[in-house]
């Protein structure tokens, strides 16, 4: 039997199977996409801002369970917040929700959505 628990927490498995924020976001006002060059994971994050406040978020991409769960949690964390606060979300905040013991080599799966968020809020390339 595969030692899966060491790799994927229940939260990751749940968010992978039934992500809450996956899908195109019509009327997005800030969009960015990036790739993790180490594994090829790709995430595109879409935000709708009302003034400085993020009022909706969505993501699409081609990414593993960890990265998908991370993007989903990130989307949940930033909706309703001002951009400045969203920018302050850190890897630790995501890990706290994911409740997983991520190996150092997979940390970039967690952090890719964060860097895409930063790009989107900086008006980075769609």
């Amino acid at each position, binding site marked *: *039997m*595969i*030692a*899966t628990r*060491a*790799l*994927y927490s229940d939260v990751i*498995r749940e968010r*992978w*199977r039934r992500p809450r924020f996956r899908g195109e976001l019509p009327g997005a006002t800030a969009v960015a996409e990036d790739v993790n060059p180490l*594994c*090829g*994971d790709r995430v595109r994050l879409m935000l709708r801002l009302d003034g400085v406040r993020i009022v909706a978020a969505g993501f699409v991409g*081609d*990414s*593993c*369970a960890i*990265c*998908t769960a991370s993007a989903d949690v990130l989307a949940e964390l930033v909706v309703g917040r001002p951009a400045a606060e969203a920018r302050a979300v850190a890897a630790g905040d995501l890990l706290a929700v994911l409740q997983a013991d991520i190996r150092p080599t*997979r940390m970039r799966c967690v952090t890719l959505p964060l860097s895409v968020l930063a790009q989107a809020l900086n008006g980075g390339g769609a």
Partner: protein
Amino acid sequence: MRLHEITRGDFPVLGRVVNGHPLVYLDSAASSQKPRTVIEAMSQYYARSHANVHRSIHTLGEEATELYEGARDRVQRFIGAQSREEVVLTRGTTDGLNLLADALCAGLAPGDEVLITEMEHHSNIIPWQLAARRQRLALRAVPVTGSGLLDLDALDRLLSARTRVVAFTHVSNVLGTINPVAEVCARARRAGAVTVVDGAQAAPHLALDMSLLGCDFYVFSPHKMLGPTGIGVLWGRRERLEALEPTRGGGEMIKEVWLDRAQWNDLPWRFEPGTPPIAEAVGLTAAVEYLEKLGMDRVGEHERALTRQALAGLAALPGVRVFGPPASVSRGAVVAFAVEGLHPHDVAALLDAEGIAVRAGHHCAMPLMHRLGVVGTARASFSVFNAPDEIDHLVRTVADLRSVL
């Protein structure tokens, strides 16, 4: 004795324990492991004979030059080239394809056509895209059939008097398809086109004979065939190489230089500017020696048996999709597969937790992924040191995967 029983002890890395399990390395198509003789040949070279090659009159320089040029001779025999001058040592398949795309397209006219295929690796796509943009050429691709073969009827329709180059892979790194090189080259030649074959996935597994293949250029990467990183091979039919203007300059590729002009050196040095990969050439010789001692026929047989075993085992699993031609067709030593409900990266990560190394992703063949309608696949690939029980272990572990995520 099966081949792995002879070879396993020769590969130091197979002693590795990964996540508490003995390493099962099924990623040789990306880069193979190295036998001890290859590793030690390079260490010995550095410890005893290193110097720069060519134009050196001291003992170490002469030794290094003989070793470097000896690799060329060894490769010549290994691939059945007519002469050593036809063997250019490059930095890899990608490097060779860039060299060829630059040099072959430099003289083409706007509207001339380059033909590739839908199953190419990015290394056999982008260099032609860059050349096409520079020279305003048309770049077209031969489609792949539903069963993963080159569509030869479409090839005939695409070939025309404007076709100048046909560049295609010998063996697909995703589908495992072995393309009919001689057949494609004959048709291309009738259309007046130069042929370039990407042999990256063929050279490690098939006995090669340049006189039978019928192509004009053939490139491959020693690091995928038990040899070192940092070196490549480009074979060119002599008259084709002679007609090619070098597009890269530097030391060693010239006979005489003035500030405003230069006279090229003879073949093959004309295409080897700068200090070449010397220790890597020594490792290449050792890799070829190792493969020749096993015998390429036997190597191919062993890997085909493993491939059949993996194909049959994986295809029988519920929720597992296997890509490429049916097992009845002779295939290269790769099996790409998908597990329903799992991202390929997770398939790889979960297998890695059991010590099994497979690759996952688009395998640098995005156009083929688009054609297959997937974002990526997992891929197991095999070499001389893989054992049947490793394939069993792979199949058993994949069977468990769907329950864990």
